[in-house]
């Protein structure tokens, strides 16, 4: 199995593509991290949770 030679465009835009990939990956981690922090702290628990207890 052999990989084809990368297209000239891929070579030329490697830095830009890598930058975009890093930004998007970071965004995923940020959304995940924020969600984790807010849920574990109980920001989104139903308001009547204390009544049921």
């Amino acid at each position: 199995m052999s990989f084809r030679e990368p297209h000239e465009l891929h070579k030329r835009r490697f830095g830009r593509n890598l930058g975009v990939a890093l930004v998007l990956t970071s965004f995923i981690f940020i959304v995940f991290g924020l969600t984790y922090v807010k849920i574990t702290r109980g920001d989104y628990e139903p308001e009547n949770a204390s009544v049921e207890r």
Partner: protein
Amino acid sequence: MSDASINTQANTGEASFGDYFALLKPRVMSLVVFTAAVGLLAAPGSLHPFEAFCAILFIAVGGGASGALNMWFDSDIDQVMKRTQGRPIPAGKVQRDEALAIGVALSGFSVVMLGLATNWVAAGLLAFTIFFYAVIYTMWLKRWTPQNIVIGGAAGAFPPMIGWAAVTGGVAIESVLMFTLTFMWTPPHFWALCLFMKSDYKDAGVPMLHVTHGRRVTRNHILVYTLLLAAIAIGMAFTGVGGPIYLTTALVLNGLFVLGAVSIWRRDETVAEADGYKREKAFFALSLVYLFLHFGAILAEALMAPYGFGGW
């Protein structure tokens, strides 16, 4: 990256990731990050460290977005002025439309994300800051009045207020004073730069004070604003964000700053030209240290407070 690809990039003038990043004015962004972080850390209450990190990040992205919008609108001026000729649009690396798209997209993104990460008061202040810088300052005041930098300076002064609001969900006298500190600092800082950047603004047709009213008036204005700034900066020492460290820092720095402003005021153009604007350049350099150390002192007071040292 191979040498060949570097050469190709140079020949085609194609934008790299760094060129798009440069649209966000990273140097201005560093000031935004620092002052927003101080506002956030000095505020009563606390955020989860990850929320605090996200808040500062989104404030920085919002600041960057307004920078991109500024570069989109001012590309004609940037092309004329030596200081800005290397920016991505005048350098031919990024298209104007691309800068507009990035500016608009990042504006919406940063405001919504800051609202979700912290609260909508902080997000609203960020939205207003972007609007103020892009529309009020860039599109309206900059080409219209010599007071452009005075009123427009407000845009750069909002970040500590946004940082404060991210924690408290509101506005307080301390956050307004942090805003006022940067607001009053901007005119003398910028006018000192104008005095030794000479013809740049004149060539671009931007009505800066020294172009419309002359250098004598600019020197007078630097002195008056510096005196007003000193009163505010020292007065801040006696509020909730002040304390002995801040008071000492403010007394020393404002003493030096007022001396610098008086020395600029007493000079005329002949003397200044003879020594290559030495005093004006020194005053400009001091202004950078001035703002950094004032906010640094507020930060020190806030960080030492839990150990019983900060504040009064």
